[in-house]
């Protein structure tokens, strides 16, 4: 089902948490709401589900305005951050709850529960209580429970926030597959960019209650619309200072314009190589699995870091204390102004 929100506003007291957010999600899409914690993502999700009332704005599901509908009438599947499984009900009873509410026949309930137990790989555990399951299992039961009534829209609030890293990765792949199999439209909230990019068709970046940018993962990575997005996505250097003739301090930068700027350089848009007439000295080299992180200090005191593939030829001769030359292959600049709610990054 398609969903459209228009001009959503939500305040707690005088504190605005959602400020004029509008977007559309097409039928069958899997969309991530990505942003720092406390940015209003969950609130948007809860407004769509009808769990929180909006102060202003409209929510449309499948072409019909639903603001006046109670959460129980919207037929939206919701997966809660900490599972919210009914603790006194077995796995089966949990999954069957939505069907029971609809008055589905016992036979239908049983078939659907069996199907879902198979899909989530928990066959045979139907009579366990939630307390007897692992975190990952509980999360899958929560998903199955939300899917049982066959909602056309599935909303997931930090669905993998409470499980450990390894399980999270597995669940992600599984969610993507499930989404494609059951033909639902899904929106999920996360603060983990890797998760958002790995799973979703489109990503919406939410910050301080505003929609900063909506686009495919590639669009977000390659064409960040705002300085916030550029800073938030990926590992970045933020260089602040006066840009004159394409130079900032000791560095040549492929950016247009001049004057006081914030220049954002991704850690993989840099080249370091050993050069005795270079402009910086390596401080530290840290292996990170398949990549290596190199931190250096420019002769004018600014810090900069880059990441290279483990076996990259660029790493030859680079170690702590080595003098290096630097080439910035890609950068983006914004006129300098303090970002709302952010401290100045020392760089």
């Amino acid at each position: 089902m398609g969903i459209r929100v228009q001009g959503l506003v939500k305040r707690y007291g005088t504190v605005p948490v959602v400020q004029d957010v509008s977007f559309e999600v097409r039928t069958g899409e899997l969309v991530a709401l990505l942003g720092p914690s406390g940015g209003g993502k969950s609130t948007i999700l809860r407004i769509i589900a009808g769990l929180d009332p909006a102060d202003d704005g409209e929510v449309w599901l499948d072409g019909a305005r639903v603001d006046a509908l109670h959460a129980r009438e919207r037929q939206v599947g919701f997966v809660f951050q900490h599972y919210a499984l009914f603790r006194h009900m077995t796995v089966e009873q949990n999954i069957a709850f939505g069907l029971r509410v609809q008055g589905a026949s016992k036979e239908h309930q049983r078939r659907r529960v069996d199907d879902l137990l198979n899909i989530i790989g928990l066959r045979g555990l139907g009579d366990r209580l939630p307390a007897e399951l692992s975190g990952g299992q509980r999360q899958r039961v929560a998903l199955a429970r939300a899917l049982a009534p066959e909602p056309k829209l599935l909303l997931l609030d930090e669905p993998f926030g409470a499980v450990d890293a390894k399980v999270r990765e597995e669940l992600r792949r599984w969610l993507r597959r499930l989404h494609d199999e059951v033909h639902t439209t899904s929106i999920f909230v996360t603060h983990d960019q890797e998760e958002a990019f790995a799973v979703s068709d489109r990503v919406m970046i939410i910050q301080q209650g505003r929609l900063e940018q909506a686009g495919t993962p590639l669009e977000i990575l390659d064409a960040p619309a705002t300085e916030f997005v550029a800073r938030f996505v990926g590992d970045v250097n933020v260089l602040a200072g006066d840009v004159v003739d394409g130079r900032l301090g000791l560095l040549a930068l492929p950016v247009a314009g001049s004057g006081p700027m914030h220049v954002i350089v991704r850690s993989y848009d840099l080249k370091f190589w050993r050069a005795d007439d270079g402009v910086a000295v390596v401080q530290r080299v840290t292996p990170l699995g398949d990549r290596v992180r190199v931190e250096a200090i420019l002769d004018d005191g600014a810090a900069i870091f880059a990441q290279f593939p483990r076996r990259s030829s660029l790493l030859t001769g680079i170690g702590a204390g080595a003098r290096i030359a630097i080439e910035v292959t890609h950068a983006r600049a914004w006129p300098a102004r303090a970002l709302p709610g952010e401290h100045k990054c020392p760089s």
Partner: protein
Amino acid sequence: MSDTARRSRPLGIAVPVIACVLVYLVGVLVVPLLALCATVLSNLPEVVGQLTTPEALHAMGLSLVLAAIALGINLVAGIAGAIVLVRQQFYGRSLLDALVEMPLALSPVMVGLGFFLLFGRTGWARPVIDALGLKVTFAFPGLVLATTFVTLPFIVREVGLILKVQGTSEEQAAATLGASPWQTFWLVTIPNIRQGLELGATLTVARALGEFGAVLVLGGAISGETQTATTFIHASMEERQEPAAYGMAMLLAAAAAGLLAFLQSRRRR
């Protein structure tokens, strides 16, 4: 953000339920309290007159003395009991635990009866106390006994709860730092259980001031001798001296409210 959001929810604002709760609380608690206040205030001079008689003042003083004694005894016994019940494992511990809770469940009249049977004219313990030259029934020691009995559980329970939560790691740390058991007790244990002590002590005093059934049976409520604040109220009602009864009741209610307010103020810190 989501924590604030948690405040509105499906069963969140069930106005009829809240309304029922308020009506119930007002009807059962607030209106009777206000009725007493109104009665007393509308009749203030007479109330003051009847509360300043020697008998009334003696009753008040006696209640305060009894509360102080019960508090003293139960501070010592209560801390000791909490330590024994929480920190020690022994055969019969759960029996002892149940015995400590017993005074909360027993009717105060039965408490009076039990001691009466022990120390009364034909009581088992009569030879002992006679030999000691003591008088328990219809006398001060009986009142002390009754008050101490009904207030026994409070300090044990509240201190015990805190001891259970805290464990013994701090005491062990003190020991490794060379503290003697006595030093450990005063410097580590007592400051740690302070909150429980305050709560338990407040409840002890409140219960002691308000004890009625046991001191009535055991003390006999002899005016000017064994009559406490509560038995004074009882006697005043029977003698149709309502102003005296209402006045003393209001004093006790005010004391109770004061004790609760004290607790609230301590809890907030």
